[in-house]
């Protein structure tokens, strides 16, 4: 893998989200929240969501991890904030598709996300990028349990 490939993975926008994460804090009274962990590399994420009606009025994340998992969490919060729950769910779906197909998700109105496109070419890092999105899904499902992105999970064994 060359320097170019590396630049493809660590795009400037991604590094910017890593160094200055958006919504990296807590919410005093979240309507739902969830924890996610990547057991194989030690990444952990906590997500608080405040829903009013069917709209996500606030979202925040905590935890620690590599630049990809942190930047992806930051972008995710920026994307969903202010959107409806249905839109957020569609975003999760579109993001997962993007990791599988390595094609721009075309998540409307949010260009930063394309900075994660390079990750799809690094199978070992897809789980880092996916962690926050899966955890959001879990939080919205109101299950609140623990999410993991085990690299031997369904996507991976499908040979992607």
């Amino acid at each position: 893998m060359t320097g170019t490939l590396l630049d493809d993975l660590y795009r400037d926008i991604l590094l910017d989200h890593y160094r200055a994460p958006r919504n990296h804090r807590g919410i005093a009274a979240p309507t739902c929240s969830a924890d996610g962990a990547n057991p194989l590399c030690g990444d952990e994420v906590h997500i608080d969501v405040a829903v009013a009606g069917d709209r996500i009025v606030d979202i925040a994340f905590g935890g620690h991890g590599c630049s990809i998992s942190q930047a992806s969490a930051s972008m995710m919060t920026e994307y969903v904030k202010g959107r409806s729950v249905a839109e957020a769910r569609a975003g999760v779906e579109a993001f997962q598709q993007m990791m599988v197909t390595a094609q721009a998700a075309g998540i409307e109105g949010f260009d930063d996300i394309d900075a994660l496109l390079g990750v799809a070419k690094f199978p070992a890092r897809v789980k880092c990028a996916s962690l926050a999105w899966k955890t959001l899904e879990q939080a919205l499902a109101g299950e609140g349990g623990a999410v993991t992105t085990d690299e031997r999970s369904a996507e991976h064994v499908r040979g992607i």
Partner: protein
Amino acid sequence: MTLTAHAEPGARLPFDLARIRRDFPILRREVAPGVPLIYLDNAATSQKPVQVIAELTRFYRDHNANIHRAVHTLSVESTELYEGARAKVAAFIGATDPREVIFTRNTTESINLVAHGWARKFLRAGDEVVVSEIEHHSNIVPWQMLRDERGIVLRYIPMLPDGTLDLEAARQIIGPKTRLLSITAMSNALGTIVPLEVLIPLAKVQGAVVLVDGAQSVPHLPVDVRTLGADFLAFSGHKMLGPTGIGVLWGRLPLLESMDPFLGGGDMILTVSMERSTWADVPAKFEAGTPNIADAIGLGAAVDYLAALGMDEVRRHEIEITDYALRRLGDVPGVTIFGPPDVRSRGGVVSFALEGVHPHDVGQVLDTKGVAIRTGHHCAQPVMTALHVPATARASFYIYNTVAEVDTLASAIESAAAFFHRGGVGI
């Protein structure tokens, strides 16, 4: 994915015996000067084509690394190859979700995994496990151990004199107390193909779980878990062109998820603290420690090879050769053939006795002619007891065997008879 592009998936080759034989380097070997090998011990283990041997070499020369948990190139490649092999094996047996394929060492470990992870968790004293009299020891001993430990009841579907199962008796034995039917698809000792389409529904009606020992069926017959009706399927790579040291347990996902892990250690955990641990998802939950990465990938290559031939063609070839062998050996004076007379009711296995000559001595004489057969109880002592013989001689066939080899087998048996009946001269 380029890493597995190697064999063209889905490409179907004509069944060309000469070409197939060229793929197996060991078939060019002589066991003594001028005495070429005739390998007829395939029920014990199969030979390996260059494609499989080369895949192992390629892995170790180009990609070898431990899988999972690492970002470096070799580890990413090894992980893709390993998980790619899982997907190939799943596709080969018709499993839609590769997570249903657990890599083990062999059939024996696969069955023990069900005994430990499922049966120890869900069976209680008095619950019945039904097997048959023609099982391999690997499908008897784990249940005897469970019986002695937990008080389950172990019941056997009896064998009829022709080596088939007594289906009338099966209807009596499989009943409301049956919690597990654990049954071979094909007897390695006699070749009997078990009518699973009759037995599995009997168990399912009772709500029992069904484990099929596919050690002999998956290498030799088309097997599709979507139509099989079983819940677990166990088989060994080494009997189907793959390396030694790799086997498979296929299981339905919800069942696998309900099971306790078996071995504890690295890779099967989600979190470990000094106080407690939590388990990874299926299949990792059952693959503790560094797996047999290279041989799983080798099994993937074996499955590619068989899929390219087509399992219906494999079966067709074996019927042809077994049919010939039954007739040819049946004509040798003093030979008694065990097992079902109808070639469609048996796999490529011919177990026999030669009057007045112990199987061990038959095998020894055949070896001098280059003919490798197995002699003994074939890990199926209850079958020997039922046949009232201490042992048998067994020839078993695979994709590379020829009718000419069967002719050599037959005349070698004649030599053995001559040697022992006339006093050891002139062989």
